[in-house]
């Protein structure tokens, strides 16, 4: 059975391997270049180090993002082009009626297909993920935003789970739809929906986020205010970054020391005294609340992300193992 499965997937596996090898070669080149540049411009930095960091991030960001996107799109493609046709193609060409009558039970037939083609999917994706995580290490350390959705989903363990899930999803949708093209389209859509849902709805709730009150005077030591605005609705922070952490709040209201909101009138009154907005806010004894997932939860979240994907894959595989021995005609 292993021989037949391999014989059937040989061509596509070799093609994909060639593609992965090309990506890996590029990553190796990028990793070497990245480390040389890091040593020269960051480690040995003497003047204008912040500019050097920005220049470094600008230089290597796009290349790493490209491979990262490949890792995010890759599983969906695996699901559509490997998972969906794996059994559906046999049903469409009728060859299941040939292979199901060899002296191999359908459960074993399915198990070998799932293990071999699914295993290759996971190995390819996971291997590339580990290579990217290694290559991007100095970059990720510098930029320090590993919870960024496009980074989180393309590093370490998460891609292993995605590959497994997309593959089993394609397989099960194929078994249920029995039309390769329909199954491919449905797989792509459902998996894209899954990724969006994970990043925006599920992942923020993997753990109860931390709510921290930050004094205005500490605002730029704990983290960094990206943008701050004053309007008729009062004073608010539109972007707050804490190194390595995942800030969930997207609009943060600023309060005065007495617990009331900082209003436009407060700012205008303060402006007349001639102080900078920063001085004013400190004068108000202002503070704000930030809701975030701390940086040290990164590995817990990676494991949970993997766990969710593996769990869903197991359910899907269960459906396939329940459905296929019952016959499909």
């Amino acid at each position, binding site marked *: *059975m292993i*021989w*037949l499965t391999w*014989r*059937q997937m040989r061509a596509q596996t070799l093609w994909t391997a060639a593609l992965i090898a090309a990506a890996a070669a590029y990553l190796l080149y990028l990793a070497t270049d990245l480390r040389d540049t890091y040593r020269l411009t960051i480690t040995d930095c003497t003047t204008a180090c912040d500019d050097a960091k920005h220049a470094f991030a600008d230089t290597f960001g796009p290349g790493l993002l490209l491979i990262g996107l490949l890792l995010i799109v890759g599983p969906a493609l695996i699901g559509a082009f490997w998972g969906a046709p794996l059994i559906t193609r046999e049903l469409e*060409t*009728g*060859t299941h*009626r*040939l*292979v*199901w*009558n*060899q*002296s*191999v*039970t*359908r459960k*074993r037939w399915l198990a070998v297909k799932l293990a071999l083609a699914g295993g290759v999917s996971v190995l390819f994706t996971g291997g590339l993920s580990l290579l990217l995580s290694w290559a991007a290490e100095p970059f990720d350390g510098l930029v320090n935003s590993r919870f960024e959705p496009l980074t989180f989903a393309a590093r370490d363990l998460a891609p292993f789970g995605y590959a497994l899930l997309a593959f089993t999803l394609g397989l099960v949708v194929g078994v249920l739809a029995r039309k390769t093209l329909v199954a491919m389209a449905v797989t792509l859509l459902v998996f894209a929906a899954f990724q969006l849902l994970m990043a925006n709805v599920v992942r923020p709730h993997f753990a109860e986020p931390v709510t921290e009150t930050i004094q205005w005077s500490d605002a730029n030591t704990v983290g960094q205010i990206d943008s701050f605005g004053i309007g008729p609705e009062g004073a608010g922070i539109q972007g707050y970054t804490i190194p390595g952490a995942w800030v969930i709040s997207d609009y943060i209201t600023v309060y005065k020391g007495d617990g009331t909101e900082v209003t436009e009138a407060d700012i205008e009154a303060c402006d007349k005294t001639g102080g900078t907005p920063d001085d004013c806010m400190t004068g108000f004894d202002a503070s704000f609340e930030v809701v975030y997932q701390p940086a040290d939860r990164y590995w817990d979240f990676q494991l949970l992300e993997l766990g969710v994907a593996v769990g869903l894959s197991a359910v899907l595989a269960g459906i396939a193992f329940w459905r296929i021995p*019952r*016959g*499909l*005609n």
Partner: protein
Amino acid sequence: MNTPVLSTDTLTKRYGRHTALTEATLDIPAGRIVGLVGPNGAGKSTLLALAAGLIRPTSGHIHVLGRTPAADAHQLADVGFVAQDTPVYATLTVADHLTMGKRLNPTWDDTFARTRIQQIGLDPTKKAGRLSGGQKAQLALTIAAAKRPKLLIFDEPVAALDPLARRAFLQNLMEFVAELDISVILSSHLIGDVERVCDHLIVLAESRVQVAGEIDDLTANHHRLIGPRGTLDTLPDGIDLIAADHTDRQTTLIVHNTTGHPLDLPGADTIGLEDMVLTYLHRAEGLTAPTLQETRA
């Protein structure tokens, strides 16, 4: 050889509202070449797919060689199945198919397989997708036979073949059935083919088994009775009426003698296999059979 190759009890298969097979009860002894005949859509493929374990019954029971079809690897090894249109892997070569057979079947007879491929004249390096219909059928037949099953099942093996290839295929089939000493069930809508190679018959129409038995018994026990109108209104016990046709002066009956004794009625005449089958098929469709009149005399 005491275990029946196929035994079913009120076997029924439904797809949604459509009933493909209705309460089929059969008992087929080992060592036969069984012909399954009936019009398209009669349920032949359904019955064979149930026997091969490709699908499961909605209700009723089926046992093949005394066991549930496709129960385990051992049961699968005992049954060879060649599906309709004889599917093969288009991108795999003929040799790849033999390797597949060898790897997937512990009882595989590689010498037999290679010899047969050579005899048929198939090029082992040729992709199966480029074979003709007849060659594909031969390849599928070889794979099914080389696993040395106790029972071979063919679903319309010759439907896609031209008359010449059909004859060659059936000839071939007969040869190695004799060589391997196995039971065979094959479906066909060509009664002539069945008559040539089979010794047991199942007539299936409108999803129901119409009649089943040894062909010799069936032909010996089906009769055409012709008599003046009114003289054939009552039949003795054990003489089943299959079809009746009346003209103003004459009545023609087709009857099945199930008494076990020779029929002792005046004007009785045996009918051929084809006429018998057609009578059952017409009855199933609720039509008056035109074959009741002796047309060939």
